[in-house]
């Protein structure tokens, strides 16, 4: 056990699985870097350095740089998965899904079903999401609700280095297509991460705080806000349970419903836009299946129905904050 960052945890997961299984390959723009260039090899290791060092260990045959042609190379990862590889392809920012979504949602997601169960597509698509880096409208979106909507895809959203590693190893070993969301503001987050390989199973939520008054269901980076608020409210004797579903598809409905049964109050915090979001999705789950447990209206905290603004002053106002979450929980306790 050692302290590692979210980035290091991901790198380690990829490295361990590549060592274990020769069919695992990695591909993406500048995933090694320096391809065809006169300078250093493995010059980048991906734009955030997550794949750094893999090429020197596994060679260019297993760590492939790509042209800027997401449809072609994500589609190639999908096709290769059907034919026996376990590719991990990087869609650098999830905001770029618009140039390659077909290969993900009509091909990878549907093959097994359309082919009557006679195919499997063990592909992982790693992608970066979320706000906070002043990266503006086309590089800050969450968009996991769009992928969660699509049957046939699995969607993982690790909030911690531990989960990042365990979910990534599970994603690679999983026989279904997995969209793996890495929050760009979490790469430097440290945490305890065992050195050996382990998996975090999909569809198992993690309960990061326990309390009897309010349940907060939080996704990705929002889990840290929720933890912070729970810790703060504990001092005022308000008990908060924080549920981090870790994967939105499959979704651990049971843990969420159990928590709500216990607390009777629920706040859902989702960094995505509000409409047809995970906030809405969980609200539906609870309102349909745990209605009689509820002591108060369901509350949701999301980004507003606007693109992500550039200016720091605006982005700070845009993102869900711990302060607003805390106020929402407090107001729910008063209701």
């Amino acid at each position: 056990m050692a302290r590692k960052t979210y980035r290091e945890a991901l790198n380690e997961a990829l490295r361990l699985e590549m060592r274990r299984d020769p069919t695992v390959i990695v591909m993406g723009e500048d995933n090694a870097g320096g391809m065809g260039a006169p300078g250093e090899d493995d010059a980048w290791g991906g734009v955030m350095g997550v794949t750094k060092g893999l090429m020197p260990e596994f060679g260019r045959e297993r760590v492939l740089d790509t042209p800027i042609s997401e449809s072609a190379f994500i589609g190639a990862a999908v096709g290769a998965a059907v034919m026996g590889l376990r590719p991990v392809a990087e869609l650098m920012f999830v905001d770029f899904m618009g140039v390659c979504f077909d290969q993900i949602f009509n091909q990878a997601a549907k093959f097994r079903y359309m082919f009557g169960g006679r195919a499997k597509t063990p592909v992982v698509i790693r992608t970066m999401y979320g706000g906070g880096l002043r990266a503006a409208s086309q590089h800050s979106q969450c968009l996991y609700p769009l992928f969660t909507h699509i049957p046939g895809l699995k969607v993982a959203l690790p909030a911690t280095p531990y989960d990042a590693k365990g979910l990534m190893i599970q994603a690679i070993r999983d026989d279904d297509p997995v969209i793996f969301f890495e929050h760009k503001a979490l790469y430097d987050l440290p945490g305890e991460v065992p050195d050996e390989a382990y998996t975090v199973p999909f569809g198992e939520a993690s309960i990061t705080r326990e309390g009897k008054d309010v349940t907060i269901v939080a996704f990705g980076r929002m889990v840290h806000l929720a933890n912070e608020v729970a810790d703060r409210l504990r001092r005022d004797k308000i008990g908060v349970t924080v549920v981090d579903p870790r994967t939105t598809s499959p979704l651990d409905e049971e843990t969420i419903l159990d928590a709500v049964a216990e607390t009777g109050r629920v706040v859902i915090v989702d960094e995505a836009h509000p409409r047809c979001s995970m906030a809405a999705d969980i609200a539906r789950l609870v309102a349909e299946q745990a209605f009689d447990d509820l002591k108060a209206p369901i509350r949701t905290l999301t980004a507003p129905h606007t693109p992500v603004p550039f200016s720091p002053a605006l982005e700070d106002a845009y993102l869900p904050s711990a302060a607003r979450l805390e106020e929402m929980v407090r107001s729910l306790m008063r209701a």
Partner: protein
Amino acid sequence: MPDAETPLQHSRDFLLEAYRRMATIRRFEERVHELFAAGKLPGFVHLYAGEEASAVGICSQLDERDAITSTHRGHGHCIAKGCDVTGMMKELYGKAGGLCAGKGGSMHIADVDKGMLGANGIVGGGPPLACGAALAAKTLKTGGVAVAFVGDGGSNQGTTLESYNLAKVWNLPVIFVIEDNGYAESTASAWSVAGSQVGRAAGFGMPAREVDGFDFFAVYDAAREAIGRARAGGGPSLLHVKLARYFGHFEGDAMTYRAPGEIERLRAEQDCLARFRKRVAASGLIEEGEFAALEREIADEIEAAVAAAEEDAMPPPEAVLTDVYVSY
């Protein structure tokens, strides 16, 4: 399918088998045409009749290491790659015993075990997947190649064009086959395709040839070169195969955009089956009577497939929920 020595010195067995495949496609499609008109088949159906020399000229040189991706017009590619016609017919009926258990239908018919990675409802959906199949073959060193069948209309899709570049940059064993039947729906390729297919390939540094798609042997020869290059590590190629479809874009299309008499003339003068028979009969290897016998056999086979499909059960409603994931 047994391999041939050189393109113009094929074995009798090879020729009979090639003809069987082409004639099976033709018969299959003609029966589907009738069945659709009779209201027996649900959904959207696009027929391959007229284009048989392309699928068979190419797939007759592929084996179980090799994979193909197809289009919405996929029945011919299926049969050429060895899919079971009874399973196919059942699939078109939406029956439980179909190749895809009734879940895919004509537009998504597939048999991954046979290297047939699916018809595709998305124009341009196949080429990236073919790059992937080629990458798998290359990485796993199977010696396999991948063939992406694409229509003239599909040649304008960005996914197709990107794939040319990726295949070249990664030096993948893939062959892009542009089956140019002159139309994308009602739109002529003469209008929609700026430049030329061969010129485009050249622009990406990829060897390419235009091929007479009514001539099985021309297709065979061109594909032989391209497949050989791919197997030898020489990277991707493109074939621009010029041919024609005999039926509408989809079943139900009145085809008012075509010239009067266009299809009749094509059938009379350019039919790939007729040309094959003529050429082979001239060589003396196979007699006309043998072809006729083969065709009767095939007709029976297709009739049996129809009967089996008619009799097969619909999938049970619970089957809606299965096969979404391997595990969930």
